[in-house]
């Protein structure tokens, strides 16, 4: 399966090289001409995108996709993709843009462009409201649960004061159990995991204490499309300003936007 996906990805990449037109029209023009924007969204990554009860994709990214289409005044064609093929879809113009919890990396920046960030994605230390912790130094004497070997656990081991008790568990589920059952005061994990906990056990709803590693999500688009890029950033900026993005965060991530987003 993996091999097939890779082969497919390689094939897509090849076609992209083979058929890239020498003179390219900006993506924005063709979108406006067709009155349709094709947007690749995740289908396997809740709460950003997963199949709902009616088997239609739903999530933060799908709402964001519809928001963009609405702002452009065109129809949205939602294309469910997987993590592995979301960039090939873009490169072969099967999708105009990718809104699929895409993080920025040097490798990816070589092949595609990124808009400004549209969704917060980070790991941090979370705890119930009554616990006053604002920085690693405040962890003195506290008990934090984390999944052994995860980035947040390794970072915490470095930054937490010596008398912090870090309880390391085998997997995410055990770490979550430890937090939900009250065996640890705080939990070091990703914001999506914290959202899942908040949804299922509201009495132990984790709120963000501080961020450990920030890697927000960006919209991916093909290179050399300055008009589309400018338009997307304009829409994102407007959605941020009038609170649309904050609403998405409350709806899907069960938390306000982190400070500075």
């Amino acid at each position, binding site marked *: 399966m993996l091999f097939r996906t890779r082969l497919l990805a390689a094939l897509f990449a090849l076609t992209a090289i083979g058929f890239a037109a020498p003179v390219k029209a900006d993506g924005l023009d063709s979108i406006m001409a067709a009155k349709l924007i094709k947007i690749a969204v995740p289908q396997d990554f809740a709460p950003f995108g997963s199949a709902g009860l009616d088997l239609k994709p739903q999530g933060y990214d799908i709402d964001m996709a519809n928001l963009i289409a609405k702002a452009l005044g065109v129809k949205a064609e939602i294309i469910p993709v997987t993590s592995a093929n979301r960039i090939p879809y873009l490169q072969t113009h099967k999708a105009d843009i990718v809104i699929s919890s895409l993080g920025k990396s040097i490798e990816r920046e070589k092949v595609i462009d990124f808009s400004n960030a549209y969704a917060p994605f980070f790991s941090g230390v979370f705890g119930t409201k009554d616990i006053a912790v604002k920085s690693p130094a405040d962890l003195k004497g506290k008990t934090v649960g984390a999944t052994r070997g995860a980035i947040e656990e390794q970072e915490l081991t470095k930054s937490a004061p010596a008398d912090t008790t870090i309880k*390391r568990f085998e997997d995410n589920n055990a770490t979550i159990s430890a937090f939900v059952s009250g065996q640890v005061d705080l939990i070091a994990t990703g914001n999506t995991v914290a959202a899942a906990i908040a949804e299922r056990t509201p009495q132990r709803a984790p709120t963000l204490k501080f961020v450990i590693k920030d890697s927000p999500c960006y919209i991916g688009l093909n290179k050399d499309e300055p008009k589309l890029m400018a338009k997307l950033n304009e829409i994102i900026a407007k959605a941020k300003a009038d609170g649309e993005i904050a609403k998405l965060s409350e709806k899907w991530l069960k938390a306000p936007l982190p400070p500075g987003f």
Partner: protein
Amino acid sequence: MIYHLQFSALLPYWRALLDGLIFTVILTIVSTVVGVALGTAGASARTFGPKWLGRVVILYVELIRNTPFIVQLFFIFFGLPALGVKLNESTAAFLAMVINLGAYSTEIIRAGIEAVPKGHIEAGVSLAMSKWEVLCYIVLKQAFRKIYPALSSQIIIVMLGSAVVSQISAQDLTYAANFVASRNFRNFEVYILVAVIYLLLAIAMRTLLRWLGRVLFKGAV
């Protein structure tokens, strides 16, 4: 495929491994002493106690012997807080080990008790020994001598099984090994070392228990 073992990669972590080893040893000693005491009480209660107490013991033994240790451990650590009983990971580990060994040793010791000839008990009673004297000097003494090898094996099994407590973040030898492996990715070396430590620990315990048996039951029947 050639793999170059690099045990030197473990050196910076010797302290964590040593602390883990010490925790495992203490955990084993304490749970052995308390667990065997619990087992003795359980076996005596089941054989000589009132009927209702015997039933309670049967329920306890069956419940523990027919469920996995890790489930018992998770029940105590993750489950009980829902009832307001919050035990830290070390206490939960000790408790789970004691309860587990208690149940197994109840059955082992009961076998020993039932193997004591009835005539011996009657002889004790006819010599005007009290109920407790009969239990201690006639029944249990003989029972322990008979089941000592089986009990020793169970204690070793419990020691090896204690590796599971690392799952609730109790910092035993296995927890230390997992921690080191997550830091230097030298899984092969770490688990070779830890397996050897467990092996040596088991051999040492067996030797110690055999010596203890010789001291306790000298002039065996």
